[in-house]
């Protein structure tokens, strides 16, 4: 960390320096001085942060103390840790560092960001931290949080070896209370050892024998043919925007005006060509940029993708591990006993290309879109296979794959509601545009567009209606919904920790309700749209039998 933050600031300074070198003078000296000043401040802040940030791992908690002016103490109980995420940007990798993000189960309202970010610890330390925090050994030894200076010439730690996984410091530098030991976060560069742990790695390694190497099973790896799905994802489009913005920024920093590199001349020439040709050309260029950009992003994100299951001998549960990334390497670990289900996402475009993506629902994974992605966009069959493989250890004898369970269709009212919900707004829009066209003739071109939207809305409604379905397998509650972003969710019945049933006035007239299974994982709740009230109660009754037998008696039993 001591190195990374200032280095980042220095990199930001590079374009200015380049301009200085090229032109021999800066046309904006103030900007240069501001940059230098900011960099000095950042370096200073980095030093202060490094000096004041400490973490320690006790048998019960992981604690992070930070801040100089505003001191912060955050701690996470170890038994609540759900996932450990290792990320390394190219800069971090240069110094063999990792950002370790420890995520804990939040109680929803209380700890919105229930987790800690350790930026940055040594690569080996990160791996051993992960192993230690996720594999809950019955009696965890008091751990030495520190660091472990990885000698620069040591080979990168593999998953199988944890050189710094010491049970205790042999040199007796543990604090008097013997419970824990603190160390500065971030292996300092050479010569700046924290002094809390002896650097004699071999001696320290001796007591480790109690933890054997984990056994690793590979569940999936990258196939380069999947690159064809890259342009079909929305995040790819967003990424293209980011690239364009970055390129523009760079040009700006270099002091190059778009005019000087001929953009204006090109625009003029374009303006002289016929309209259809211009539109076609611009469209083709945009498409090309989108495709190339999304492929580049795909490669950066998913290079070296591997999904593995690792488990210690004798431990009942292992952990799923997703490793990926070309420049920025990412590695997500999910404790297997924290998995509550899987989801297969099929956004419209990806579905059109017969692709899908499997995600894991685990307590402690955030609600953000990428949360829990187990694989890159992949062929549909592969997505279902990975989803099933992720759950295989939890429920070995479930057939068929949970996300491919045949689903019960929803009542006709559900289909009708999809159509009314899509067509009524489209119709209102059409009426509004027709009226607007009558009143202001200048807006006369609007209503044909609105008219064009009506059949689109109908198609979308049909698609959404066909998606609806639910099923109850012996282990899972499976539900599917959505058109633009379709998803099939298989939620463990034991992972359901509550129920919400909603009924709007329209649903009351149609005689349906929306049942939401509340869970600690993923988005927190997964709805089953528009089912008959009796079906909803029967589902609740079957998934949580205790509730309706003694708690909330049924008035009239019904069949699913």
């Amino acid at each position, binding site marked *: 960390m001591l190195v990374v933050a200032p280095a980042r600031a220095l990199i930001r300074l590079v374009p200015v320096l380049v301009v200085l070198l090229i032109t021999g003078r800066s046309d904006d000296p103030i900007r240069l001085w501001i940059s230098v000043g900011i960099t000095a401040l950042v370096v200073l802040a980095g030093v202060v942060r490094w000096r004041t940030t400490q973490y320690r791992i006790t048998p019960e908690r992981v604690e992070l103390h930070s801040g100089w002016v505003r001191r912060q103490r955050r701690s996470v109980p170890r038994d609540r840790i759900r996932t450990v995420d290792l990320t390394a940007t190219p800069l971090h990798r240069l110094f063999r560092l990792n950002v370790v993000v420890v995520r804990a189960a*939040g109680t*929803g309202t209380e700890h919105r960001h229930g987790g800690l970010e350790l930026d940055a610890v040594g690569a080996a330390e990160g791996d051993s931290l992960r192993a230690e925090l996720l594999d809950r050994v019955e009696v965890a030894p008091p751990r030495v949080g520190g660091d472990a200076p990885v000698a620069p010439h040591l080979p990168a730690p593999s998953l199988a070896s944890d050189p710094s996984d010491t049970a205790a410091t042999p040199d007796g530098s543990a604090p008097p209370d013997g419970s824990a030991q603190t160390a500065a976060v971030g292996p300092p560069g050479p010569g700046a050892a924290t002094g809390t742990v002896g650097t004699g790695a071999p001696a320290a390694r001796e007591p480790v024998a109690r933890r054997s190497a984990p056994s690793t099973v590979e569940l999936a790896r990258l196939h380069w043919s999947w690159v064809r799905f890259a342009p079909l994802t929305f995040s790819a489009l967003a990424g293209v925007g980011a690239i364009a913005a970055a390129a523009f920024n760079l040009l700006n920093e270099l002091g190059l005006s778009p005019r000087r590199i001929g953009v204006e001349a090109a625009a003029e020439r374009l303006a002289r060509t016929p309209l259809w040709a211009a539109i076609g050309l611009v469209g083709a260029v945009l498409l090309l940029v989108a495709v190339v950009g999304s492929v580049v992003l795909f490669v950066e994100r998913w290079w070296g993708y591997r999904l593995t299951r690792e488990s210690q001998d004798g431990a009942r549960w292992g952990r799923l591990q997703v490793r990926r990334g070309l420049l920025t390497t990412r590695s997500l670990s999910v404790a297997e006993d924290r998995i509550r289900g899987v989801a297969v996402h099929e956004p419209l475009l990806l579905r059109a290309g017969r692709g899908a993506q499997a995600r894991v629902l685990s307590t402690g994974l955030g609600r953000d879109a990428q949360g829990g992605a187990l694989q890159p966009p992949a062929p549909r069959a592969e997505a279902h296979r990975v989803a099933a493989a992720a759950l295989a250890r939890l429920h070995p004898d479930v057939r068929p794959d949970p996300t491919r369970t045949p689903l019960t269709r929803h009542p006709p009212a559900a289909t009708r509601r999809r159509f009314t919900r899509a067509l009524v707004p489209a119709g209102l829009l059409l009426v509004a545009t027709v009226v607007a066209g009558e009143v202001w003739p200048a807006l006369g071109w609007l209503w044909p567009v609105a008219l064009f939207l009506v059949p689109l809305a109908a198609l979308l409604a049909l698609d959404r209606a066909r998606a609806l379905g639910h099923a109850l397998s012996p282990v899972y509650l499976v539900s599917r919904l959505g058109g633009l972003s379709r998803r099939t969710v298989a939620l463990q019945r034991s992972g359901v920790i509550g129920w919400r049933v909603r009924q709007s006035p329209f649903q009351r007239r149609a005689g349906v309700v929306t049942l939401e299974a*509340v869970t*600690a994982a993923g988005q927190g709740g997964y709805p089953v749209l528009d089912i008959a009230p009796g079906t909803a109660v029967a589902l609740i009754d079957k998934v949580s039998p205790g509730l309706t037998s003694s*708690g909330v008696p049924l*008035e009239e039993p019904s069949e699913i």
Partner: protein
Amino acid sequence: MQTGSPVPTALPLRPPAHRVDPRAVGWWRLRGLAGAAAVALPQLVVVIVLGGPSWLVGTLIATVVAGLAYAAVVPRILFRIHRWEITDEAVYTLSGWLVREWRIAPISRVQTVDTEHGPLQQLLGLASVTVTTASARGPVTIRGLATADAAELARQLTETTQAAHGDAT
């Protein structure tokens, strides 16, 4: 909630046993009026100070009428609908006016029990009890309980949930 019809349009579950405190009607009424006032006052100020356009007078009157109508009618409906029950197995509530919502949280999954007194609630001697589970979507709130009832309920729930083991996820 009418039941017994061949095709039940509401949930075929027995509604929770207890009503909220009758003073909750007053609380909902005050809240409705306060909300209407928050919308009406800026309009009033504009009309008086700046002599606003005539349509603003119209919206102002509409706001006041809607607020009064809401305060007169809706709180009673809310009182009729809102119900709660704590059994050995679950916390069970029914709430809502236009959109009805049934919430069930198994006792074994309850993590925290909070009691809350807003300023209006304090005025009327009311309290809300919120029962949280491990899910962000899971909290179950019982609003408009008498203060003493709420305290007793929270105590009872805390006792019950302490007996449960595990981290309830």
